[in-house]
């Protein structure tokens, strides 16, 4: 069980530790900026697009956290399904305003 016996197991999801650290910090910074961007985008239609990008960033972060399962659902839900729902809802609302 002890990690010292296992030397750099290479799987499709693993990168060397040093690179991983840098990667994670970079993506974390991007996610933090992304969250701010989503909140500060006050035009809802544009915000849906920014949310989609934010979902993509989160998905990459989760991949770096070794969570491919969550990555996949964040991609399908956060980056695709939710923005679509938002845009459809906005379309519905907008149509009434006309």
């Amino acid at each position, binding site marked *: *069980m002890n990690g010292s016996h296992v030397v750099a197991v290479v799987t499709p999801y693993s990168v060397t530790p040093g690179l991983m650290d840098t990667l994670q910090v970079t993506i974390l910074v991007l996610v933090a900026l992304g969250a701010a961007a989503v909140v500060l985008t006050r035009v809802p239609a544009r915000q849906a697009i920014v949310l989609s990008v934010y979902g993509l960033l989160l998905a990459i972060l989760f991949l770096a956290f070794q*969570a*491919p*399962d969550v*990555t*996949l*659902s964040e991609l*399908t*839900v956060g980056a*695709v*399904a939710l923005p*679509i*729902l938002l845009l*459809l*809802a906005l*379309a*519905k609302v907008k*149509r*009434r305003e*006309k």
Partner: protein
Amino acid sequence: MTPGQRRWVFGAGMAGLAAFLLWGLTGLPGFGNYPGPYGDIINRVAVAQTNATGVVSAINFSYRGFDTLGEEFILFVAASGMAIVLRHLRGEREYAPTDEAVDRHVPPTSEAIRMVALILTGPTVVMGWYLASHAQTSPSGGFQGGVVLATAFVLVYLAGRFLVFERISPVDVTDAVEALGAGGFAAVGIAAVAMGLPYLTNFLPRGTIPGAVSSSGTIALISFFVGVEVGAAFILIVGELLDQTLLLREGSG
């Protein structure tokens, strides 16, 4: 409160709350030092116990399958709740059809989009099906598969008109399918109870080869039902939001 006051009051409160939260977070073992034991134990025993090589799916559909049951019903309730709120809206429309903006111009879907959407539909269905049926081996499962399957239906919508969408997923049938997905999951658990075992016990033969498609007993079955439920729920949700846009298209095209 005026927006200005609120901003200040919130700022002060949030500063305090953030300091408090950080005070607590410093008590964690530090990033990258997960101490266990829950996850470590499951990582060690899951493959032998369930014959599923994807441990996350083993947790979602077996060890903590009861959580997933609740989660499926949350989605089920959300789809029903949307139907209550929005179908009623549609009902009202029937009394006053003239107040809708008939003069709005809706550009017809371009041929290119239609083609691309049509081409994508097939692979998407296959992909969704693959994801929903390979929970035990790969990073996937009913949930992701269901969403992807629902996406296929949205593509159908893009390719054609809503009418097609309605024909493929009539609301009543989708409703029933959704209920069957959620109910099927609950029923798989009940089958164990009927055999005198605790609820959701994995009572099916688990195969002999870890990670084979037919391995892992009820895990694959539950994943399938989750896929059906999630797919149907998403189709319902998107359908509820789409219906009016569609009526417009019919009017204009």
